[in-house]
């Protein structure tokens, strides 16, 4: 599919495959054009709407009871399904209420949207108005209700993307920077903008010192890093890899198997990131690794402790800078 949409002087110019039968997350910073893309698909702007059920970013609650709002546009069978979904989303007891909170409105709107039978499900920030502890439960209901239908879900939130998505499109400044399986996008961001947007990346600058088949070795801050990329010797390049692709060892491991990159140094920082922990290792260059709190404890890692970071070369992307 291809879109060019002028709005407010901005330009949305996308050319992207969105697979059917999967949940595709459109991810990107605010103002990237995600909602515009979804509006085009839903047909609230533009000319060619898909056959879709659509949850707008700003949920609008009409005058009247929550139950009346829930049933808008639904036939009897769909309304029953919506009531069932509202129950599962924890708002089933509020049918008669006329004053409901933002999070409750969001749930009613979600129940109504998901109860519709259209083959495409378009959701704009479906978890945005919800408390952190409710998100997992709501996400589970969303995934179940979508079933084997196709879905496009817009979010600027990493957790929501990981929970809800199978496929991922990264949209920045109205342009698609990367599209693919969600794990792939997180593990191997296509460029620095994606790495910054998905927020899990190590991004380092350096110069190509050696090449070998699809790999090249980049000198950066006294370390040599092997990664994937076709470059000439002496090229100035940027190296990037996801923090979750880094394996950490306490001290120095006897062997790192097939991995090309092993960086030894001192832990300089340990910081919580959502439900995970990021560990920064000074190995001439700073290396960021994403761990669970459990792994951190098992390894006994803390600031000032020696450690080794290991990364497979195939998880490292080398791009021109």
């Amino acid at each position, binding site marked *: 599919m291809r879109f060019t949409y002028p709005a407010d002087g901005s330009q949305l110019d996308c050319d992207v495959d969105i697979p059917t039968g999967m949940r595709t997350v459109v991810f990107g910073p605010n103002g990237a054009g995600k909602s515009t893309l979804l509006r085009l698909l839903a047909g*609230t702007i533009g000319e060619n709407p898909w056959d879709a059920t659509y949850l*707008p970013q700003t*949920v609008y609650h009409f005058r009247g009871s929550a139950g009346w709002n829930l049933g808008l546009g639904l036939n009897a069978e769909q309304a029953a399904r919506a009531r069932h979904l509202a129950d599962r989303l924890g708002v089933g007891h509020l049918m008669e209420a006329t004053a409901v909170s933002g999070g409750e409105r969001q749930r009613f709107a979600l129940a109504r949207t998901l109860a519709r039978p259209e083959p495409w499900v378009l959701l704009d920030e479906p978890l945005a108005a919800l408390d952190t502890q409710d998100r997992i439960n709501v996400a589970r209901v969303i995934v179940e209700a979508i079933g084997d239908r196709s879905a496009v879900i817009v979010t600027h939130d990493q957790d929501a993307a990981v929970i809800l998505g199978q496929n991922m499109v990264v949209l920045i400044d109205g342009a698609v920077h990367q599209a693919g399986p969600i794990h792939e996008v997180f593990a191997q961001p296509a460029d620095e903008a994606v790495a910054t947007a998905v927020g899990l990346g190590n991004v380092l600058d350096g110069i190509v010192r050696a090449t070998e088949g699809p790999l090249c070795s980049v000198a950066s801050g006294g370390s040599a890093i092997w990664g994937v990329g076709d470059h000439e010797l002496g090229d100035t390049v940027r190296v990037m890899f996801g923090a979750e692709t880094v394996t950490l060892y306490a001290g120095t491991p006897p062997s790192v198997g097939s991995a090309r990159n092993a960086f030894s140094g001192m832990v300089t920082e340990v910081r919580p990131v959502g439900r995970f922990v990021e560990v920064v290792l000074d190995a001439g260059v700073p290396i960021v690794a994403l761990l669970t709190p459990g792994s951190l404890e098992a390894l006994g890692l803390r600031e000032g402790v020696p450690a080794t970071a290991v990364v497979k070369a195939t998880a490292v992307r080398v791009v021109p800078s």
Partner: protein
Amino acid sequence: MEFLGGLLADAVRELFGFGAELRRILFLTLAVAGIATVIGVLVGVPLGTWLALTRHRLRNTIDVLVNAGMGVPPVLAGLLILILLWNDGPLGSLDLVFTPMAMVGAQALLAIPIAAGVTAGAIRGLGPAASEQLIALRLASYRRGFVAAREALPGVIAAVAAAFGRVVSEVGAVLIVGGNIEGETQVLTTAIVQQARQAHFDSALALGFVLLIIVALVNVALGRLRSV
């Protein structure tokens, strides 16, 4: 000051002295303006709702027509109806010139654009989130219009009040198509004109009071409806 005070006292006396004639004028005023308002609302509110929601290519043209219609001088609307209804006009065979029916027609012509314009403004004023949600609900178009107008109910009531206010207080249209025939097509505004022309200021003022009270009562009633 003395002159004004005396006039007011005379006006109040006049009010009770009018008797049957006043009742007839009052009845015709309410009937003509009331029916014209009902027609104006029945046509104008759906038209305004459609205008606010549609992406039809004629929307902008009709928008301009409605906005222009909101400002049309009543005497011009009356003239148009008069020409239509005149002996050799397209509707001359109906023989409606100088009848209450013709007055209803002319006032309905004035009420429709007001009702449509105020309704469209109220629905557009619901904001982008509401209009997007209305599309996302995928309702049949008449249902969508109903939900939108229901949501903008205070604005729709304001449209009714504006339409009634415009027709009950205008003089040009009813004068030109009705002819201000005493006992037949005379309404409050045209009676005021006649009394003033004959320098019966006390009578004119008394009728003015009545008109003011009608407008006030209708607005109070509609205001109550709005807060429901």
